[in-house]
């Protein structure tokens, strides 16, 4: 009798495949039910017609999409794209130096600054937007301070404008840009920077020829993370914007809750979704093309 023979009964090998499905199941069901399905509903409704008192008449129609071609909607979409684009650009310009600075700090200070930024990242967006109202409005902090310092005699009209919306968007999404940038910069082998320096590069060439190409994935990630939410922004233009600062988010809300034209609102949502998905596809494409270019095995 082999003294090493086991007395335990054969343990069934854990069936990783079926186990995986059973674990994923409930979560998957939930997401399908309360995320995927609703989106499909929106898609369906976008092809329907508005009922007389709001509500939906299930008659197939392409009216809504044709309505989108109306210059009014075109203007709002265009403005949203412009604002989202400018927000992304400004966040990149501000975020890159900040991320670069943090990436080169000693580890403990790095962790500290990162925690501060991440905390901001998750803090109440509504409150952060309201802070700017408090500062910028006619009786707000900035105007009061400037008047008390006798620098101006009448309060500046800063709020309720496109510029205020831009400011609010940049403020809201800057952390979304800094964090992926930091991750990309931090990953660069410091020997590469030294090698460029050793090979006579000045600061600008270092930046342009080495730093930027090596952090490209991070830059693209940051841009996507800022562009997409800015495009669909609702609160910022709603609170900080004026009558002419309407963005797609506000428009959708307006159609749904004010004009009660659900089919039109759905069509708008689908268009927004298209642009978002398009940007994401572009992002993934860029990522895989990058890896291919490097000859990464």
């Amino acid at each position, binding site marked *: 009798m082999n003294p090493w023979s086991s007395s335990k009964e054969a343990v069934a090998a854990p069936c990783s495949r079926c186990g995986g499905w059973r674990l994923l199941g409930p979560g998957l069901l939930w997401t399908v039910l309360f995320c995927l399905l609703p989106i499909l509903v929106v898609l369906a409704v976008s092809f329907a017609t508005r009922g007389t008192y709001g509500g939906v008449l299930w008659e197939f129609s392409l009216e809504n999409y044709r309505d989108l071609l109306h210059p009014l909607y075109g203007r709002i979409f265009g403005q949203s794209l412009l604002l989202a684009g400018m927000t992304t650009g400004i966040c990149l310009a501000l975020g890159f130096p900040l991320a670069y600075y943090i990436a080169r700090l000693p580890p403990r200070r790095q962790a500290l600054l990162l925690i501060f930024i991440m905390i*901001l990242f998750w803090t109440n*967006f509504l*409150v952060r937007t309201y802070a700017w109202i408090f500062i910028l409005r006619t009786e707000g902090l900035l105007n009061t301070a400037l008047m008390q310092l006798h620098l101006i005699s009448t309060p500046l009209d800063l709020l309720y404008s496109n510029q205020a919306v831009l400011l609010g968007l940049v403020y809201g999404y800057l952390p979304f840009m800094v964090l992926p940038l930091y991750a990309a910069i931090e990953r660069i082998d410091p020997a590469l920077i030294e090698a460029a320096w050793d090979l006579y590069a000045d600061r600008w060439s270092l930046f342009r020829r080495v730093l930027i190409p090596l952090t490209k994935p991070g830059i693209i990630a940051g841009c996507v993370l800022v562009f997409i939410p800015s495009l669909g922004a609702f609160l910022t233009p709603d609170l900080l914007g004026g009558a002419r600062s309407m963005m797609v988010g506000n428009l959708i809300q307006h159609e749904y809750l004010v004009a009660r034209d659900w089919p039109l609102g759905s069509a708008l949502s689908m268009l927004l979704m298209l642009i978002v998905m398009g940007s994401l596809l572009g992002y993934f494409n860029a990522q895989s093309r990058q890896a291919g270019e490097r000859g990464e095995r």
Partner: protein
Amino acid sequence: MRKQGLWLQGMSGLGMAFLYLPIIVLVVFSFNASRLSATWQGFSWHWYGVLWHDEALLAAAANSLWVAVLSTSLVVLLGVPAAMGLERLRGRGKQVLDTIMLLPLVLPEVMMGVALLLFFVMIQWPLSLATVVIGHAAFNLPVVIVMVRARLQKLDPRLEEAASDLGASAWQTFYRVTWPLVRPAVLGAALLAFTISLDDFIVTFFVAGPGATTLPLKVYSMIKSGLSPEINALSSVLVLASMGLVGLSLVHQRR
């Protein structure tokens, strides 16, 4: 390389100041004794007192807490197994599943809110606090999944094999080996989901029923209906609460 140019230091200082100044200003002025919020007229706890006695506000706060607790529990119960399941699955279908599960993260919130609203109307489910819980659970699920998966990926796969080699059943392996190692990430994710739920506005805005006011909704209506100084106090409370919770979550994760 350690010494950074003045330009960099200056820009970064400006950047951090830009990020934090508005909040600091808000908190400071919440202690302003004056009615006209922008001129400083002495330190006072007055507005916090007003908050404390505002019935409607307290009800909204209670609602927010309920929704946060319920949706976070849901999200943990669904998300942890889902993360484990996703890690185990292989094959081509995996990409599709990954995309589906992470979908809410990339959708603009307006879309989620609007889609859920339509959905509930279509299946004739009346809007209430429950619909808010459902909505929160739907868009917070990927948050938990991403964070738990990140932790799972760092886990040595041999550990589970070792456990089953030593006779442990699937449940025992999970309870005695996987769970203790994954728990900090789950806690961190739960705290994060809780915070996001407390702070959420847009989805809540679309799917809340009458009487199902949460704190962010209340703040919004307060801002829209003309500013009263309580808003500063309320905002400060919200900010400090979220900062505290997130800070806790982050510190916890670093262990």
